[in-house]
């Protein structure tokens, strides 16, 4: 006789054990550690919500306080491993196995813990990939999540930073798992129901609101002339050529420069309404001038950004907002939108090799992936066409026809030298050395070369769609690698040939006047200018206020 309800029975057992510690669904802060000891068992898969910008930080610190004799060998499955508490779980022996996507500030600590054998690493995933596995073979037994507010029934308002929450809760709640939410406040009535009470087992009011870091704010005051120059090349050589209407931008200064040039140089090129109208994008403050100048029709967001709430609430034609008027973000859906519905991804990276593979791993840091790999990948499941997509596909195939499919434009923008004169172009990615050291069967690669269509540097644009051999690709990359060792080792005759074929375009080939490559071309030259553009609705965090 098979038992078909083991999971539901186990869930009921744990909820019963926890009942004496709660008042309905409400748990007092002091009881949370004891509660976790009753609802979590050793070897459980646990998602301790760690999003890009919102982390269940109180629940994380409570989980580090459970008795490791009682609870150990947990398998942590979450997108962001960004708090020191997330690492403490492994140090203390509470957790052993890890599957994640992004580590940001903990990237050095993760590398150390892996090296010391404190973490058994499953895989570093792209976002959609990890979320997908929540529904196949990494379904959490327990999810510890964060929300802005809850009512006493457990209805949650996750607010502008909704991010991963619905995805995590859905996987856990519908597979007999247990969901605990920390909230900033318990209220009589939530502004809107982002997660219905049915899916929530326990709520606890955290002693402090969860912290949100302004990850996507780039100060226009720090954009350099070189970045303006590269942004001009991208606009003229790629936006004006392919006319991608639907796109995603990375978070670097080069793409911030493009955003700030749309109302000036982009206007001069006659691109308004013809490119960059629909976006999968975090709420970048540097896009405000383009929005206010009528460039942007709509934006769907992965998460929110500090200081942008009032602005977005006042622009519901552009942003996705709830009936309460605040932003609704959703990381799974926005990543999916970026993968399938965008014609272009453009962003920066730390290292590019001679095949165009790129990585943000350095010898002692494992930062994980963030959003770039899903955005910066050609979706083979795509079937709808657009002019930009077809044009890129036809260039790659060297032919047109009913069976020639399009290509996503995947553009990497890098300055040839990064911080501390570190060359961005390398013969071999550091991630390969790291994979060797840690016995990883697959090196962490942010975007594989076969997905990259263009590389933009201050030296020009390399169009990899027009490359017909690995030698073409290597020399096209060397040809825009400037005065790095990789660039200095170029074959001059071959690079001249590639330039004649239009594979490499120098700024002068694009008719770009270097004298215009000046910060004065930016639509906003400071954070304060952005506030002015926003009619005072953008409220920058204090560290960006210098007036």
């Amino acid at each position: 006789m098979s038992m078909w309800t083991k999971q539901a029975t186990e869930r009921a057992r744990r909820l019963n054990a926890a009942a004496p510690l709660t008042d309905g669904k409400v748990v007092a802060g002091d009881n949370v550690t004891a509660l976790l000891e009753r609802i979590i068992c050793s070897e459980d898969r646990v998602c301790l919500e760690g999003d890009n910008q919102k982390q269940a930080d109180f629940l994380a610190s409570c989980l580090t306080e459970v008795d490791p004799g009682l609870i150990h060998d947990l398998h942590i499955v979450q997108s962001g491993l960004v708090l020191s508490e997330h690492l403490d779980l492994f140090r203390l022996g509470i957790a052993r196995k890890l599957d994640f996507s992004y580590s940001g500030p903990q990237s050095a600590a993760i590398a150390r813990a892996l090296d010391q054998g404190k973490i058994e690493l499953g895989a570093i995933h792209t976002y959609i990939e990890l979320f997908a596995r929540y529904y196949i073979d990494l379904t959490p037994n327990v999810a510890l999540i964060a929300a802005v507010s809850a009512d006493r029934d457990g209805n949650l308002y996750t607010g502008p930073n909704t991010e991963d929450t619905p995805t995590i809760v859905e996987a856990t709640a519908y597979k007999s798992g247990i969901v605990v939410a920390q909230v900033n406040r318990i209220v009589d009535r939530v502004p809107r129901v982002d997660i219905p009470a049915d899916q929530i087992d326990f709520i606890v009011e955290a002693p402090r609101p969860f912290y949100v870091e302004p990850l996507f704010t780039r100060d226009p005051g720090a954009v350099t002339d070189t970045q303006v120059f590269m942004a001009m090349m991208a606009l003229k050589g790629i936006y004006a050529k392919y006319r991608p209407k639907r796109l995603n931008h990375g978070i670097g200064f080069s793409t911030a420069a493009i955003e700030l040039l749309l109302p000036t140089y982009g206007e001069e090129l006659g691109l308004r309404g013809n490119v960059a109208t629909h976006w999968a994008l975090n709420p970048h403050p540097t896009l405000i001038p383009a929005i206010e100048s009528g460039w942007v029709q709509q934006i769907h967001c992965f998460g929110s950004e500090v200081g942008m709430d009032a602005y977005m609430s006042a622009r519901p034609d552009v942003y996705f907002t709830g009936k309460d008027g605040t932003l609704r973000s959703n990381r799974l859906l926005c990543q999916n939108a970026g993968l399938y519905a965008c014609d272009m991804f453009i962003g920066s990276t730390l290292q590019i090799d001679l095949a165009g593979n790129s990585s943000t791993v350095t010898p002692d840091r494992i930062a994980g992936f963030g959003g770039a790999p899903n955005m910066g990948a050609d979706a083979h499941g795509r079937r709808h066409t657009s002019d930009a997509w077809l044009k890129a596909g036809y260039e790659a195939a060297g032919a047109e026809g009913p069976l020639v499919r399009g290509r996503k434009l995947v553009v990497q923008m890098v300055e040839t030298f990064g911080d501390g004169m570190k060359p961005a172009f390398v013969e071999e990615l550091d991630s390969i050395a790291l994979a060797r050291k840690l016995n990883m069967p697959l090196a962490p690669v942010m975007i594989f070369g076969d997905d990259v269509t263009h590389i933009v540097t201050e030296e020009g644009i390399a169009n990899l769609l027009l490359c017909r051999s690995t030698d073409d690709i290597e020399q096209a990359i060397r040809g825009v690698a400037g005065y790095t060792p990789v660039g200095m080792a170029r074959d001059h005759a071959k690079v001249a040939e590639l330039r004649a074929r239009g594979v490499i375009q120098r700024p002068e080939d694009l008719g770009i006047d270097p004298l215009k490559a000046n910060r004065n071309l930016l639509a906003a030259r400071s954070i304060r200018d952005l506030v002015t553009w926003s009619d005072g609705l953008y409220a920058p965090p204090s560290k960006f206020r210098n007036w």
Partner: protein
Amino acid sequence: MEKFTISTRAQRPLSGTTRQAILGVVASGNLELLFERIGGDTVEINILTASTGYRTVWEAVIRDFVERTSPGGVRITIHDNGARPDTVMLRLMQGAKMLEMPS
């Protein structure tokens, strides 16, 4: 600190009539350049650089600059303050453009 001069020949004299141009500033990540028209087809570049041991990189930057703009008859004096090669190239291109403008 290192100081050296690189002299080369351009394919043709730089067009335009502006005699002199100064651009950039000595500041972090930036550099100062003086362009002077001296006639003929030689290009003379005097470099005062904050970092030593980069002469081959300078030679490569200047070779590409001369090939890309053909700035014959120009003397350029550079105070680089440790600027990166890409910034040097951008400022060189900008200086040539300034001399090419009618005075």
